[in-house]
């Protein structure tokens, strides 16, 4: 959790404070983008776009205690927006190698899971990531995706059942 003093410093134009904020949030932003897009270059591009939006508009944020919710919404909207424009792409070799080098014993199960999520139909994938990784509740997901609550329930359950099936194959 980031402290409010840092947000105040960022709003006053302190570049060092912005660099600290960037360091704190980059892993989450990149991982969220990668979860949706499954493509390194696209994920980097979206991460850059998100921080640029933050840099340009943080002074317009009325209540700084709502910074986390505000940032999360920017991340989600940017990722969903890009996800809908993107065509499906397989995981790159570079990404595979990076994971294998760091966790040789676990790489196969993590990659297997990432690949399985990537095989889900887009509607299931976005609902599952919003729930499992971003922690939104069903009502928030319904609002974000502009779909009825009942559809959210069936998509999340359908995604889990399909994911389980893919993993067991």
């Amino acid at each position, binding site marked *: 959790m980031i402290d409010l003093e840092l947000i105040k410093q960022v709003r006053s134009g302190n570049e060092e404070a*912005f660099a600290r904020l960037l360091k704190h949030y980059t892993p989450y932003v990149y991982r969220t983008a990668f979860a949706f897009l499954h493509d390194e270059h696209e994920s980097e591009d979206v991460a850059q776009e998100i*921080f640029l939006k933050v840099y340009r508009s943080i002074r317009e944020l009325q209540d700084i205690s709502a910074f986390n919710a505000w940032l999360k919404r920017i991340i989600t909207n940017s990722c969903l927006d890009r996800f809908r424009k993107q065509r499906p792409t397989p995981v790159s070799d570079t990404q595979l190698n990076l994971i294998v080098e760091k966790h040789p014993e676990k790489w196969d199960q993590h990659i297997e*899971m990432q690949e399985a999520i990537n095989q889900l139909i887009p509607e299931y994938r976005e609902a599952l990531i919003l729930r499992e990784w971003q922690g939104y509740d069903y009502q928030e997901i319904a609002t974000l995706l502009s779909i009825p609550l009942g559809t959210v329930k069936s998509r999340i*359950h359908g995604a889990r059942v399909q994911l389980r099936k893919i993993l067991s194959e």
Partner: protein
Amino acid sequence: MERGYSCVKFFRNKDEGARNMNCSECKAHISEFLDGELSDLSSKYVRKHLRSCSGCKRLADELSSLSFEIEQAMDSIQVPVDLEERILTSIRLEHNTASKQIWLTGLILIMLGIPILALSSPFSLSSLRLFFKTISVLMHTWLTLITIAVPPLLGLGITLVVALLAALGIYSLRALLKGLQANEVLS
């Protein structure tokens, strides 16, 4: 608020507690149950079914560990080492470009504005005079009409309402422009 509609229907239609929830009903609500999206009453009946059904219990355990594995898989995504630096560099670049553009636009406006002002100064002065004269005539007409047509207190009231409406209009316009900016960021 009751969220699991069909679950509620199930409990309303049957004698509560008289019969257990069956497996297909339990499976239909298992994700909502695990995500804490069911009401207390509905959760109670799903829990009761899970205690007595090993198949549904196994499914619940599997889906529950699936959530944990998804989180772990996401956490294992490797972030490029120099990503922060690259983002920071691009932001600095954008900041410098924006600053340069502001200065350049200001300079061009001044350079264009001086000759235009110099050439059109007699016209500008007469336009200003016309503007102030129009305002003064409008004010005079308004005050005369108010004084003649309506009692003084009502006249004052109408003037205040008009001023208030004008202030509200300006404020709404500002809020609208701010809202547009905010929507652009969040979209």
